[in-house]
């Protein structure tokens, strides 16, 4: 019974999150005009009315399978987020490791999407994305391990419970900032948009149209929502909070993180890949190590 409620709740969270992220994107770009709330629906219908195009000799299986796989990864990532004490769809002991697998497979899926189109600009975008996506994943794993240390468990529900004393964002602010980089990279937006970027005429999405493109864009937003729910659970206390019921707190915190992500998308520049790589390896990873060491010392001492 709880599982059924949790499933419905998570699906609602996914749908609402994808819709609000699309609306926030539109508002950030052109401002709040008339009909901005229904904009995602209009765009979706437009895309459904278009033909799905083909290229010459692509790898059909990987090309057409990549968007549904991306969506499945988002669903898998969302399934470990608890909506209330004991209401977790997949209560795995190693939720953090599952997230690591989701992040790694996301890189694989985006690469396959760009590679299998048999198009030059899509290929360049896919390779660039891998070069940036892997170091960001490393940074995020250290941050997640640091968040798991006070809870002494890799399960997300245990991490949420451990925040009764205080939310992790207060104790580990650097971790939260580094973790936000992961969100930008998983759905390749803004400063981390190396996969679908404007300088390669749309990147991995340059050759897709119609329902294929709609699925890809929805999957991008879905992984962002899953990330936001994860950030809300691991850093903002998940279902903890006064007055309102647990699931409502999860919704509100997820939406807050989504708004933050959309703001960050439009605020910062996308550096050339070589510069971003230098920044990640020279600044990002050492910061993550230092952060982990500090949190470790705090927990031991």
């Amino acid at each position, binding site marked *: 019974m709880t599982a059924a409620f949790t499933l419905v709740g998570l699906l609602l969270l996914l749908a609402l999150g994808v819709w609000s992220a699309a609306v926030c994107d539109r508002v*950030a*770009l*052109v*401002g709040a*005009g008339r*009909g901005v709330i229904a*904009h995602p*629906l*209009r*765009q979706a*219908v*437009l895309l*459904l*009315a*278009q*033909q*799905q*195009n083909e290229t*010459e*000799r692509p790898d059909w299986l990987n090309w057409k399978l990549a968007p549904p796989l991306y969506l499945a990864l988002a669903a898998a990532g969302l399934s470990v987020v608890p909506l209330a004490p004991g209401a977790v769809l997949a209560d795995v002991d190693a939720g953090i490791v599952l997230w690591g697998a989701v992040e790694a497979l996301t890189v694989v899926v985006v690469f396959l999407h760009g590679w299998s189109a048999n198009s*030059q600009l899509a290929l*360049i975008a896919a*390779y*660039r994305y891998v070069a940036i996506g892997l170091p960001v994943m490393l940074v995020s794993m250290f941050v997640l391990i640091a968040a798991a240390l006070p809870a002494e468990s890799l399960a997300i529900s245990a991490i949420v419970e451990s925040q009764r004393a205080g939310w992790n964002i207060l104790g580990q602010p650097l971790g939260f900032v580094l973790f936000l980089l992961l969100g930008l990279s998983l759905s390749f937006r*803004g*400063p981390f*948009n190396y996969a679908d*970027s*404007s*300088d*390669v*005429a*749309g990147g991995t*999405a*340059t*050759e*897709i*149209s*119609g329902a294929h*493109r709609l699925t890809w864009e929805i999957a991008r937003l879905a992984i962002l929502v899953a990330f936001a729910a994860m950030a809300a659970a691991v850093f903002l206390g998940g279902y903890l909070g006064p007055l309102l019921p647990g699931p409502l707190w999860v919704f509100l915190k997820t939406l807050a993180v989504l708004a933050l992500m959309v703001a960050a998308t*439009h*605020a*910062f*520049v*996308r*550096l*050339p*890949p*070589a*510069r971003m790589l230098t920044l990640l390896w020279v600044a990002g990873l050492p910061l993550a190590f230092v952060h982990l060491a500090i949190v470790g010392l705090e927990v031991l001492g």
Partner: protein
Amino acid sequence: MAVSRLASWAVTAPVAAFPAVGADAADRVCDLATDPSLTLARSPRHASVLLVAGQLRDADASALCRLHDQLPHPRATLVWGGGSPVPGSASVALEDDPRPALCDLARGLFRGERDSEPDLLANEPPNPWRGLGDFGQGGQGMMGGTPYGRMMPMPPQADLRDGLMLDAYTATVGPFLPTLPPGLVLEVTWQGDIIQSARLVRVPFEPPRDAAAPFHRALSEPGSISVLERIRAANHLRCLAHVLELLELHRLARRCRRTAVQAITGETIDVARLMRAVRRSGALAAAPPGLGRLPEEVAAEIGGVARRAGGKPVDVRARQREYADLGFEPITHAGGDVRARLLQWMEEAEQAVKLAEHARLRERVRFAHAVESPWGPLPATGHYEPSETGFDFTDLLVGCEWLEAMLVVASFDVAALARMTPRSPDPGLGEP
């Protein structure tokens, strides 16, 4: 019915148009991009309407046909300005607003009132297939190439970055790639994402005539400083907006374009605030120092923004008394690289708006011998000829990664690019 309800929803979505920009149309397309009811797509696959703006060259016809066939069904073509080798479903004069026609086309397409345009080219691969098996792997040898000649891809030289030998891939980019100036066609050889060599095939279209006309007129009769400086500011803002689009700062690019439109119409605009926002986003950090550094003698030939960005305070306006009365001082930056040119654009736009505001409409200036247009000194013949030094801007692209190469190309205005072409008589270069 459900289908017509869905169709009516599809019709209210912003029209997705892919712009194929020709001569004298770049500014108008840039202004069109500010409208929220219209989306200018980055790839033809994302668009429903092909917007052919301005006059195209004969040599661009085959590229336009291929572009047309890449749009997904249902599709239509709108010819804006009458110079298209492809007959469209509708046409609008260049002076008119194409938006009503675009909306009509889109509505007709999605409601089923208008048929989707058929393919212009036959659906066949361009090269005849010779080989065994689906992919030619049925022949003898590791690459299946014997006896049908499929060779092992042997790279001609080591990767310029780290000695890794990757297969070289050559392709032609342009003339309608949104990241390049309209009309520019390059033949690029990549190894991975590093450009090993680039060859100019066709020069980009020149600056739009109606923007350059007031500067030409200022040579013979007095022109209003306010108007001239506002055109300059608008041009610099549009160039900056293009660079910001490359750097994924779409919101800031939109603001720059809107400000450019407001500059032309004469409203009061706050460029300084916009430039502060650009700096805060870190856009200048995106260009590594020394990227696209122009040699001094070439900058001296080209003049204009590129020369001042190299540290030489050479500006025709400094010699005019009317400008000196307004307190004009040439701005310079050191380095002559992409970052310096971007800063030059930003600060000259701010300066131009300030001059326009101080001058109001009363002050007039007449230039004696030369005019400082937004694209540097105006050419005597009316066309931007290759410079005496014979410098080829494609030399700046060698060894650059794709985004850096696009930044280098975008940091020059089209007049500077036309000047930095080789002098050898290449048929097809710059043909009208």
